[in-house]
Structure formats: structure tokens, C-alpha cells
């Protein structure tokens, strides 16, 4: 296997693993946050506005990790910084 093939395979594998790990962990964490939010919403319906606002903002902050994973995966797949180097090294 030459350098380009190895780099392509590793990039695709790493992108898939990145998305898998990010999605799994953040999905679990967001489910936990929503479940806690709904519990407190059922206990105190009067505070619905405050609870749902705080819940949405915390969800966004939790979700940032998944978004980082997504961006890294997209960079690996579509804008890999080492791709140009591999092609020029293979051409030599």
C-alpha cells in the first residue's frame, strides 16, 4: 500500500470513529439532561419557562462536543491537510 492509500483509509476510519464516539457520548449525555429537565418540569410546572430555557442552553453546551467531532470528521474527509503532502510525496 502506498502512502495515499494508507492516508485515505486511516482518514475514513478515524472520521467514522470520531463521529461514532462523539454521537454516542453526547447522545447519552443529552438524554440524561432532557430526562432531568422533564422531571423537574413535571414537579414544578410553574417554572416551565425558566427550566426549558436553562435546559436548551445546557443542551447546546453539551452538544458542542458532538459538533466538534462532526467538524473534525468533515475536515478529515473533505479538507484533509495532509492530503496535498501525500500526493506530492507519492508523485516523487
Amino acid at each position, binding site marked *: 500500500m502506498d502512502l495515499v492509500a494508507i492516508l485515505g483509509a486511516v482518514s475514513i476510519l478515524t472520521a467514522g470513529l470520531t463521529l461514532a464516539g462523539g454521537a454516542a457520548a453526547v447522545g447519552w449525555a443529552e438524554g440524561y439532561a432532557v430526562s432531568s429537565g422533564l422531571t423537574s418540569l413535571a414537579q414544578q410546572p410553574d417554572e416551565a419557562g425558566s427550566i426549558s430555557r436553562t435546559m436548551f442552553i445546557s443542551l*447546546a453546551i453539551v452538544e458542542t462536543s458532538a459538533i466538534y467531532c*462532526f467538524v473534525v470528521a468533515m475536515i478529515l474527509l473533505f479538507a484533509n491537510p495532509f492530503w496535498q503532502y501525500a500526493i506530492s510525496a507519492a508523485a516523487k
Partner: protein
Amino acid sequence: MLEIYDQQIAFYLPYFNIPVNWTIASTWIVMIVLMIVSWLATRHLKTGNKVSHWQTAMEVIVKAIYGQINEVTKSNAMTYMPFIGTLFIFILTCNILTIIPEFKTPTASLSTTGALALMVLFGVPFFGIKTAGVKKYLKKYIEPSPAMLPFNILSEITSTGAMAVRLFGNVLSGVIIGSICMILVPFILPLPMQVLGLFTGMIQAYIFAMLALMYVSSVRADEDEEAAASPKKSLDIDETL
């Protein structure tokens, strides 16, 4: 599949021959839409029982934003209203206009979201000094102890980057899911994904505005001092509208 709007030239500026990419061009489109709508809506402002439909719609929007800001800051909502409201309405318009085919939404580019997040980064000292004074603003960085100074400065910068990447990644993921569905099942399936993208876009506009509000209003004068100093500072929106 991954379209980078920053590298697609929309047109060349006449006489100067400067290339204008799609991010800038669609930002201008959104700005023109917003300007025309707000001009139409605020043309014949009046009080009384009979007001135009435009004015009623505008009052609903402004009052909803005011209420949200007032819930977080408890007072002084009018200080943050122009900044936060503009951010919210701009991002919301960008995200909603994605349903128009071929519209290249500016929020799917890291340069737009980075610029918006930079505005928030500079808004923190601006609003902090405006509402609490220089001394109190600088004191925020050495709390709870001066040893935390580098971490506090670092947290300002990383939270700005996180805001930019969050909005960018959410909108970009909607765009990419749409195009993947178009490749796989181009008939019906992209439709619910587009609806999901609209929903995500609205939530993201709300979240961006709320996080910006929390950052810029993190430094404030104490509630008691503020109320004692200027009891009529929190002006009632019903009187102004």
C-alpha cells in the same frame, strides 16, 4: 458534496473587478431583506386601536425578544436589546432562508459565524464597562483569586470559538444531511430532513442569542445598587410601543 461557499465566486464587483464570494453575497441578500421588511413595518407607526398588520407583527417580535432578555437580566433589558435582537433576527433569517433552493446560507460558513462570535467577544467588555464600570469589569478576571487570571482570559476566547463552531457545525450538518439524502433517496426523504433543519436553525438562533446575552450580561452592577441608584432604569416596554 461539501460546498465551501467562501470559495465560490458569486459575481465580480463592477468597475473594480473584485471577486465577491457567495458568503458575502448571501449576507447582503439577507441584509437587504431585513432592511426592506423593517422599513415596510416601521413606515406608519402609530398608537391606538387600529394599527397596521406590519406593526402588529413587529410588536409581537420585539415584545417576545424583550421578554426573553428581561427574564435573564431582570433589569436593564433595553441596554442589551439592540445587540441581542439583531443577532437573533439575523441568524434566524439566515437559517429560515435555507428553504429557498440554491440559497447559500451565510451561517454555513465559518467566517460569518466567526464574525458574529467576535462581535460577542468585543461586546463583553463594551457592555460590562457600560453597565458596571471599568473597575468592576476588570475585577471579574481575578475572581475568585488572581491565580485564575489566565484561565479566565482563556475561557473568554474558547467560549467565543465554541459559539462560532457550534452555529457553523449545526447549520453545516443540516446542509450535508440534505445533500446526502438527495443522493440516496431524492424523492420524499429530504423533506422531513429539511423540516428538521429549519427546527435546528431556529433553536440555534435562540441559543446563540441567549448565550451571547449571558456572556455580555455576566458583568453587571448589583441588583440592589442598580435599583437604588436609578429606580426607573428598567423602562416599561408597553409605554414605548
